[in-house]
């Protein structure tokens, strides 16, 4: 390889760890060319497109045969679409009308998509499958490789503009050594998935798509560094870091605490009963955030109290006497429910979501609380129920009364709205605990949409303004003698975790894969050091300076954990 190609650049590290391997580029989908020659020989064109659709189906079926249980149905659904006689008929009509093959398939697919989108719910989701089949067929017709994540025959590093949920369904840590994307942010789907799977990942890596496939790339998902064609020396250094990291992580599976014994509970974020079973096997002190949305999304009718009770019981049982903090349904215009849709909103993040929806659809909230109470009675578990999107004391009182009336032992609130952070004292007077959702708290503090990758700079969790808001919330907690935890992505950062502990946070909840690094980091520093770091971070001019200041004060071993 030529020296000209040897470069190093930076993105945002979102999943710690290092990796070296060949680059596999996720091809963007092609579009049907506008200047495509019209079809003159319709029977021949029909034959051609049918053949291509059969090839697409066969390709998806072959991948489904070796895919994981999770990915299999997604791939099979795609194959079923590609083999669908209704699609073939639609394409045939378009070809007979004179459209060229790629435009014919695009038009036929769009016809179904328009129809399905208008039907909503389950049908609207099939639109993604259909468009995926279209992209694959158009690529084949143009003689290009199929778009999306190719089969990784050797362990590789994946580069993409961004990854859709369906595209990440087939990834495993065995074949996917690392992920680098040009778009996305620290709280994007890619970042969260990579952290869950323990795959090192860097987002906002502008320029990665210009690197040719097959080139060797080294990435450091902690600091966000990417090296193209690394020298032997650089690879050796990275390998050395990997070993030191493994050594640093090898210590301990006990409870989280600072070097001088100040306890900081280390908890898992979970979203399903399956997550609960897996997380319960890990050395975590319980669940700090059980997102219950999975029971409600993608359904035409509300899950019954019995069905909910069965799921909650399963989750509580998995954790025995360890705590399980349950967040009640957090839905709204951004995560609409078919059976409780209040209609589209101009600003869904600022609209009737979380507890605001719960106060309108009390039937949905009450059914969930009833199920939680039944599961609590059946298991006697350490259940703590909290509401999302609390902004006022009145909302907290309203929620707490409903929870306590059912005999549930502990009630809390999420602090995601700056108003709740600023007025945490009054809110905590009425509840037993609070948990800070740093992702939403940051989006609302900075007035920056967390899904907008281009605003990533405003969404850096080291932002001193965010730390100030967290500090104010913690002051209220200390005054009331009530515990405050953190359950956003920030809590899983081994350096930021020190700052949070210094601010007075008493529990950190994160993807279970992040717990060991945070545990080691806490054990290397005293509470006084954490408090000094928190003060230094808050005194910094911006996020970069804040992180820099903390890293300079930290034990050198911490650098290996990033």
């Amino acid at each position, binding site marked *: 390889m030529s020296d000209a190609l040897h470069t190093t650049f930076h993105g945002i590290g979102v999943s710690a760890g290092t990796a070296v391997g060949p680059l596999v580029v996720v091809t963007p989908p092609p579009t049907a060319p506008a200047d495509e020659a019209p079809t003159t020989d319709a029977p021949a064109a029909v034959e051609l497109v049918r053949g291509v659709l059969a090839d697409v189906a066969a390709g998806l079926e072959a991948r489904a045969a070796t895919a994981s249980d999770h990915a299999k149905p997604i791939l099979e659904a795609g194959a079923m679409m590609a083999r*669908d*006689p*209704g*699609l073939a*008929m639609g394409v045939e009509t378009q070809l007979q009308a004179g459209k060229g093959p790629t435009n014919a398939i695009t038009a036929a697919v769009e016809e*179904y998509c328009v129809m399905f989108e208008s039907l909503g719910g*389950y*049908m609207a989701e099939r639109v993604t499958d*259909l468009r995926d089949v279209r992209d694959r067929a158009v690529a084949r017709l143009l003689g290009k490789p199929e778009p999306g994540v190719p089969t990784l025959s050797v362990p590789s590093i994946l580069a993409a503009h961004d990854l859709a949920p369906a595209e990440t369904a087939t990834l495993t840590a065995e074949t996917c050594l690392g992920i680098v994307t040009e778009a996305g942010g620290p709280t994007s789907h890619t970042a969260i998935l990579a952290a869950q799977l323990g795959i090192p990942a860097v987002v906002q890596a502008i320029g990665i798509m210009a690197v040719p496939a097959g080139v060797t790339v080294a990435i450091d998902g902690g600091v966000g560094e990417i090296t193209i064609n690394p020298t032997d020396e650089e690879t050796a250094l990275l390998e050395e870091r990997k070993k030191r990291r493994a050594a640093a992580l090898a210590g301990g599976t006990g409870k989280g605490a600072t070097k001088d014994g100040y306890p900081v509970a280390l908890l898992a974020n979970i979203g399903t009963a399956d997550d609960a079973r897996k997380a319960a096997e890990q050395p975590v002190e319980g669940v700090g955030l059980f997102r219950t949305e999975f029971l409600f999304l993608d359904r*035409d009718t509300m899950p019954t109290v019995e069905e909910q009770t069965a799921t909650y019981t399963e989750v509580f049982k998995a954790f025995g006497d360890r705590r399980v903090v349950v967040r009640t349904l957090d839905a709204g215009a951004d995560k609409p429910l078919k059976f409780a849709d209040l209609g589209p909103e101009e600003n869904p993040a600022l609209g009737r979501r979380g507890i605001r929806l719960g106060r309108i659809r009390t039937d949905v909230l009450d059914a969930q609380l009833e199920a939680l109470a039944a599961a609590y009675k059946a298991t006697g578990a350490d259940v703590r129920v909290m509401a999302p999107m609390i902004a006022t004391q009145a909302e907290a009182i309203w929620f707490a009364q409903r929870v306590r009336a059912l005999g549930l032992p502990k009630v809390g609130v999420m602090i995601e709205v700056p108003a709740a952070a600023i007025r945490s004292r009054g809110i905590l007077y009425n509840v037993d605990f609070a948990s800070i959702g740093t992702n939403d708290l940051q989006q609302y503090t900075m007035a920056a949409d967390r899904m907008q990758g281009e605003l990533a700079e405003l969404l850096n969790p080291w932002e001193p303004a965010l730390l100030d808001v967290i500090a104010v919330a913690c002051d209220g907690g200390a005054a009331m003698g009530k515990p405050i935890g953190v359950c956003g992505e920030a809590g899983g950062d081994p350096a930021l975790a020190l700052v949070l502990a210094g601010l007075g946070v008493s529990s950190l909840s994160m993807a279970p894969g992040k717990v060991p690094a945070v545990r080691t980091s806490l054990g290397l520093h005293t509470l006084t050091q954490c408090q000094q770091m928190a003060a230094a971070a808050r005194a910094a001019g911006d996020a970069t300076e804040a992180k820099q200041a903390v890293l300079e004060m930290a034990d050198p071993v911490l650098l290996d954990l990033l």
Partner: protein
Amino acid sequence: MATRQVSIASSVGLHARPASLFVQAVTASGLPVKIAKEGGSPVDAKSILMVMALGAKCGETVTLTAEGDGADAVLDSLVELLSRDLDAE
């Protein structure tokens, strides 16, 4: 040609899982089965896209037709399938 009429029993209509189960049963029968809504033109019941595009709701009547050996038995079993609330099962 065998013909049957049946009212859709699934609470979500002939969508999603019920549609998928129906199409799988038709495909497994190996017979050319068509399905139509009242007043609509019949479509290939082997096509999940066309079956879902029918938009048959709970309580709506559909007409099934089939030709070939065992057409009556196949339609009887499909009628039985559509008469159940497949989404609840």
